[in-house]
């Protein structure tokens, strides 16, 4: 039983990552692909934050009388990664807007047919 409690967090996070990954590679609509990419990345962030948690610890801000803090390093890394994620999202979405203007559609199979191969 303790085995499950030790790991259920990670397992659900793995499930979420794979849900996001599945949306990215299976979706035909480009906006949905970007949503999937975001879900994929957000779930990876959860993996990092989960490993930084100490049971019984508090947020890593010094408070009188507290000795057990959670690990601040994963938090820093994920702060960076979140911002990287939104940067990619913004560029991806503006590409989608331009694709819509150029092809009139944002469905992958439809604009693929509009050009020759490659």
């Amino acid at each position, binding site marked *: 039983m303790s085995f499950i409690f030790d790991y259920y967090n990670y397992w659900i996070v793995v499930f979420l990552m794979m849900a996001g990954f599945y949306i*990215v590679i299976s979706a035909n609509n480009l906006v949905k692909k970007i949503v999937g*990419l975001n879900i994929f990345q957000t779930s990876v962030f959860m*993996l990092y934050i989960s*490993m930084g948690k100490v049971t019984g610890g508090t947020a890593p801000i010094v408070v009188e009388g507290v000795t057990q803090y959670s690990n601040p390093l994963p938090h820093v890394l994920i702060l960076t*990664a979140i911002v990287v994620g939104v940067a*990619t999202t913004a*560029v*991806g979405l503006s*590409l989608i807007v331009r694709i819509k203007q*150029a092809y009139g559609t944002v469905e992958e199979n439809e604009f693929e047919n509009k050009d020759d191969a490659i």
Partner: protein
Amino acid sequence: MLEQHLAALPIILPLIAAPIALILGRTVLSWGFATLVSGLAFILSWQLLSAALSEGVISYAVGGWAPPWGIELRVDAANAFVLLAVTAISTLVLVYSKESIEKEVKVANHALFYTAHLLCLAGLSGILITGDAFNLFVFLEISSLATYTLVSLASDRRCLTAAFRYLVMGTIGATFILIGVGLLYMKTGTLNMMDLAVRIDAYDSSRTINTGLAFIMVGVSIKLALFPLHMWLPPAYTHAPSAVTAFLASTATKVAVYVMIRFIFTVFGIDHVFVDMGMGLILMVLAVVAIFKCSYMATVQSNVKTILAYSSVAQIGYMILGLSLVSVAGLMASMIHIFNHALMKGALFMAVGAVFYRVGSVDIKAFAGLGRKMPLTMAAFTIAGLSIIGVPLTAGFVSKWYLVTAALEQGNWIVAALVLIGSLFAIIYIGRVLEAAYFQKLPESRKSENIKEVSWLMLVPMWVIVIANIYFGIDTSLTTEAASSASEWLFQTNNMLENSALENNVSEANVQEVSS
């Protein structure tokens, strides 16, 4: 003062220059500024290489915090060598791009183009120099975002879908690397690569570490376009502006190959990757398939840029092949090929860009009769093409020679033969273009067009690279010296790490004995 900060400057310089280039705004100003900065970065990386060759490793603690608490920059012969190639190509491409970009990119976007180029250069230098696994991810994203921008700047609408596909694949790759680094961090508690290497050995056969290794390998393979994860590369290289293709084809994937080398040799250790996980055989098979499949694909394309893009994927196969031989000679062949391939592809794509500048098309039919009309450009294409094929007295011959020798050294006749057969495909696809250029006549319909040689601003950088192709084919002292000391160094660190890990194990065992 400069010497003290030599390791950090090649990153900081373009990083600071990028926002300034945006503020300058005007086409000529931002072009001149970007070229100047890139040239300075080239001089710095030249000094860095000579310092690394004489002193060994240069470590620089950013913020004054000692590693593993702070971020460490770590320069050795291997990454200084790749950095030299990257900054050199970047400078030449920038000189070349002024006219090429004027033709292919809207005027309003010129300053943005040079800013993005500088950001990409900063990102690539950062990836090469940093000694911190997470910092590598950050720089990877800087260079990737700049690359998506650069690819999407072309006027053809197909560049948009190519850039989007690149963005999705690239982000998946980066996220895989993030997962891999996370798993390593979870097991070791550190992000510094040297520190990781020492601590990973203590957990050698842990499933978490192995999964982390697999995710990093897959992520990096997407970035370096290893077969079968190369699908983003041909459209991106075909539809990007010519100057961008010349820059990316000769730098971005090479940097990713270096990242793979670095993770294998200085973080995980050869024994772990090749002996325990059996990655050598996987890589070798993928490399051979890449060489044949993509060389074949190159022979049946009609767009010359696509031909060269597929050829790039095949050439990456050669680099990975050298790596997978797991010997000093094989690694050295890979390092030499990274450098030489940058020279060949840079020259080829520049020549193709010059053709596009004058003719407005890069279809193989558009090359008909250009041997007369644009003699200097086509001569450059010919020499660089011979270099791809591996004709003696060119740089390509040197890399193939070392690769074949490395394979024969291990008695691996099959690989040696495959390398030589692979070169036959190169003869076909380069030959098709040359045949059109020299033996077909200019079609009547285009006689009236005023097709002539491009200006010196495009020819000079092109010919500098072409001459470098010949120079490094005759005088191999620089490349072989740098590459051999790089690969020896990589093997040394690997051995050193394994020894220190052994000592660690011994000392830990001692501690346990004492405590028990």
